[in-house]
C-alpha cells in the first residue's frame, strides 16, 4: 500500500462506478415551427418561411434569416415533391429509431425551397449504391408520404418518408 505508483494484480481490475442520465424534456418548438407542424398535421401541406431581403425560402421554417439577420416575413407552400441532394444508407439500427436497416437518410430539396430538408427516402433499391449514385446524379425525384390523418400529431414524422417517384 505504500507504493505511490499503484499496481493492481490480474485479479484486481480497475473499478467502475455505474451511472445513467435519463432526463425528460419538453422542447419549445416556438410559434413558427408550430405553424409548420400544424400544417403538416391538418392539411398535409409543407410550408417554408421567406426572407424578403434575400428572397430565400427556408425549410424547415425559421422565424429569422441567418444571412440577413432580419425577421422572415412570409409563408410559402413548398413540395410535396422535390429531389435528393445527397444521401446515406444506414446499415445499422440507430438508437431510438424505429426503422429496420437498411434505410436511406437524405437531404431533400423540396420544389420551391431554397434549403434542404433531412428525412427518410424509401422506394429505392438500397443494395446497389452505385446505381443509386447514378439515379441521384440524374435527378431522383421524391414525394412526401403522409401518415393517415388519425395518426398525425404535429411532428416531423407526420411525413412518414419521401417516396422515390
Amino acid at each position: 500500500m505504500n507504493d505511490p505508483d499503484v499496481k493492481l494484480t490480474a485479479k484486481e481490475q480497475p473499478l467502475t462506478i455505474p451511472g445513467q442520465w435519463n432526463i425528460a424534456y419538453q422542447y419549445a418548438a416556438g410559434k413558427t415551427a408550430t405553424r409548420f407542424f400544424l400544417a403538416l398535421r391538418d392539411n398535409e401541406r409543407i410550408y417554408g418561411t421567406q426572407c424578403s431581403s434575400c428572397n430565400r425560402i427556408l425549410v424547415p421554417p425559421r422565424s429569422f434569416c441567418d444571412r440577413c439577420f432580419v425577421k422572415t416575413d412570409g409563408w410559402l407552400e413548398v413540395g410535396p415533391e422535390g429531389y435528393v441532394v445527397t444521401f446515406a444508407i444506414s446499415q445499422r439500427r440507430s438508437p431510438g429509431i424505429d426503422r429496420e436497416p437498411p434505410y436511406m437518410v437524405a437531404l431533400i430539396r423540396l420544389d420551391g425551397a431554397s434549403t434542404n430538408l433531412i428525412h427518410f427516402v424509401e422506394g429505392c433499391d438500397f443494395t446497389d449504391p452505385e446505381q443509386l449514385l447514378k439515379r441521384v446524379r440524374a435527378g431522383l425525384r421524391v414525394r412526401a408520404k403522409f401518415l393517415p390523418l388519425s395518426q398525425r400529431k404535429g411532428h416531423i414524422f407526420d411525413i412518414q418518408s419521401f417516396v422515390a417517384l
Partner: protein
Amino acid sequence: VARRAGIVGVGQTKYGRRFDVSTPELAAEAVRAALEHAGLQMRDIDAVFIGTAPDALIGVADADFWVAESIGGVGKPMMRISTGGTTGASAAIAAHDAVASGRFERVMAVSVERAGESKDVQALMNTNIDPIFERAIGLNAISVYALVAVDHMLRHNTTERHLAIISSRNHRNALKNPFAHLQLDLSVEDVMKSPMLCWPIKLYDTCPASDGACAVIIAAESTRGGNKIAWFAGIAAFTDGYFLGDREELSRRTHLELAAKSAYAQAGITDPRSSIDVAELQNPFTSSELVGIEALGFVERGRVGQALDEGFGEMSSALPINPSGGALSSNPVGATSLIRIAEAALQVTNEAESRQVEGANVALAQCSGGSVQFGCVVVLKNSEAK
C-alpha cells in the same frame, strides 16, 4: 496582436481505454507532461483554459468544476471553452490571445475527454441534434459524415476507395505514434472489407472512441525561457450555421476555406501546398479529411480523389498529412483539435520523434467540429522558417 506568442510545452496521455485513471487524473497526466516538457512548475502558469465537448461524453455536466484542481486551476483564473470538435483548438486560441494581448505571461490550454465510458456514443451524439426537426431522424456523427461523403461522390466522382486510402495512410502512420489508441497496419483493401456502418462509411472510415487528454503551454517571447518554441504565425476560426440542409454544397466547407484564407494571409503564405511542410487535419471520419484537404487549398476543389491516387499526403510526399495517425487512430473528441496543434508544434520544434517530418519549419493544424460547422486553421512556425 500586441506581441508574439508560441507553444513552449506539450503534454499528451496515451489515448485509448484509460480505466486505470479517473477523468481528473487523466487531465492531470497531460498537464504534468506539458509542465515537464516546458521545464516549468504549475506556479509559472497564470491561467488555465479547459476544453471538454459534449457533457454527455464525460457523463458529468460542466466537468470543468470536477477537474479544476487536477488541471492546476486552483488559485488561478480558469474557464471552460467548448465548440464541439474544435473545443481544444478554441482553448488554445483563447490561451494564445490571452498571452499575445499581454494580459498573461503563460497560459495553459488543456482538454480532457472520456469517450470510452458511455455505452452508446452514437446515441449520445444524437443528443447534439436539433430536437424540433431533426433528432427523430436518428442522425449521428456517422450518418452526417456519410452525407458529406456522398455529396462529394455525387459532384466529383470520388469513390469509396479514395476514403480507404485516407484511412490506410492514417492508420499506418499511427504505428509510429506511441500515444495512438489504435495501431493497426491497415491496407486499402482491409478498409474496403471492413463492415459497412452507413454507406459509404465503413468501420475503418471512422474513429475510435478514445479517452485522453492533451495540454499545451503558451508563452511570450519574454517568458519563453530557454525553451524551444513553436510560434503562432496564423490563427483563424470561422463558423457555419447549424442546419446541414442550409449549405449550398455539403461537401464544400466554406467556413474552413475562410479560416484557411485568413490564416495564410497572416502567415504570409500564398501557395499552401509548397509553403507548408506538414499538416495535421482533424479527421474523425475519412470524409472529413477528404473535404478538409480541399478547403485548405492543398488541391483544387474536386481533385482530391485524383491527388490521393497519386500519393498525396503520404509520409514520403512533399506534404505529409497526419504523421500522428490523426483522429482516425485516436479521437478523444474535445481534445482532438488540441492534439492537432500539439502535434504540429512538435513537428516544428523537431521533437516529433519517430513521426518527425525532416526539416519541418512550417506546420498547419486544421480543426473542425459541431454540425460540420466550426473550422479552425492554425499555422505554426519555428524560428528558422522564412
